[in-house]
């Protein structure tokens, strides 16, 4: 339900901050339940198709989430999010002439999955190529599907182990507080997080946000 970035603590590496977080979770009583991974590839419309559309090339993100292993999510920023099955990747190969993949910008997060009663917490290291760029924390409150009903509960839970780094309400909730939350909303949040990380500097030396 909520994805946020955990800034790297001053003076420590990404690896160490992840360890601090996971130790806090384990002390809380969370149970380790395997691993998770979310990855994102970027495609942009090839120059040859731009002329007919008369508009600037758009970026399309194709993402996978291990929570939904048989699905593939394709989205445009501020646009629709398509949920398809894994054959969509095969289709993207066929569309090579029209959509080019920016190979260098494949970004992914991998880490451990914890279960704490009704909460599912995933702490992962965001990597782009060989370098670790940041930490992602995803918390899901499983019984509830309406965001506005449980945001305060989520916030309280986040505060218990993130402390001062607790984020504000994600933009996805913005105008649709009472709408049913779905996997597409999670992927939109991950996409925004990945974009933010991609833009920031290689080594975030500046203090905690």
């Amino acid at each position, binding site marked *: 339900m909520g994805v946020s970035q955990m800034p790297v603590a001053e003076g420590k590496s990404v690896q160490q901050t992840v360890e601090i977080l996971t130790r806090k979770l384990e002390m809380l009583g969370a149970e380790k339940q395997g691993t998770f*991974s979310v*990855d994102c590839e970027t495609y942009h419309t090839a120059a040859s198709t731009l002329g007919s559309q008369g508009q600037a090339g758009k970026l399309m993100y194709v993402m996978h989430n291990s929570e939904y*292993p048989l699905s593939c999510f394709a989205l445009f920023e501020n646009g*629709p999010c398509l*949920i398809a099955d894994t054959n*969509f990747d095969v289709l993207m190969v066929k569309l090579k*002439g*029209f959509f080019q993949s920016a190979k260098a910008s494949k970004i992914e997060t991998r880490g451990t999955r914890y279960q704490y009663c009704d909460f599912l917490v995933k702490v992962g290291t965001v990597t782009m190529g060989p370098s670790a760029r940041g930490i992602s924390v995803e918390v899901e409150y499983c*019984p509830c599907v309406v965001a506005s009903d449980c945001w305060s509960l989520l916030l309280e839970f986040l505060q218990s182990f993130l402390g001062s780094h607790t984020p504000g309400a994600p933009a996805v909730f913005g105008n649709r507080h009472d709408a049913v939350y779905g996997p597409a909303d999670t992927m939109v949040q991950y996409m925004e997080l990945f974009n933010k990380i991609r833009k920031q500097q290689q080594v975030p030396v500046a203090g905690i946000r």
Partner: protein
Amino acid sequence: MQKGVCGGGRAGLALPGLENPELAEGGRDSESRGCTGVSCAYPIGRSVFISVVFHLITVVMEAPPVTMMPVTGGAINMMEYLLQGSVLDHSLESLIHRLRGLCDNMEPETFLDHEMVFLLKGQQASPFVLRARRSMDRAGSPWHLRYLGQPEMGDKNRHALVRNCVDIATSENLTDFLMEMGFRMDHEFVAKGHLFRKGIMKIVVYKIFRILVPGNTDSTEALSLSYLVELSVVAPAGQDMVSDDMRNFAEQLKPLVHLEKIDPKRLM
């Protein structure tokens, strides 16, 4: 641990409203602590998924369940083998009767589908064609996106038309998404008919209806006084004996309908 805990991960497939899933993943049950099973409607995936399930069952018995890593479709190319023919309206009943006798025993299945064909024009001479199909009588079914490649010209002795095919099930915002990608709708039609199955062969007998007002599927008119009959198989590339089986089946339908390999290019 409550049963409701794995709510987020229970429906492994993210497609909303998939009530009667042909494509489903067994949930992660906190009591059994392991993946209960995976099934897939596509023959391509069956061999892949079965091996994954066995691996998980043998390894995961003592250890906590390992979340399945995303299974990508794989590079297996699926080919569609196709034979087509047609019957006039007044011969439909006898054809249906014979098909019911020859095909697998199942409830007679009818369908009403709305198909839209989208084109993406680029600098290449031929535009990229994608077919988006939705069911009008089965609420909650996923939309079906299909890519069909050029027919393979290789073997003149091959009895069926062979072309590369990619089938994708998608959520309902498919048309919006395709428009965002740059596709534009070329034409649309409604198909209404009957579906039969014999092993991996699919036999469809349907009538095409032209849509009079774009976007309005209620006002349609029949395109012709006949029904189109298609015998098709989707199989991995290289399995040419499939076309022999298809030809043998087509023999049994003569003289009611003559199914043959029709090259779409010759019709243009």
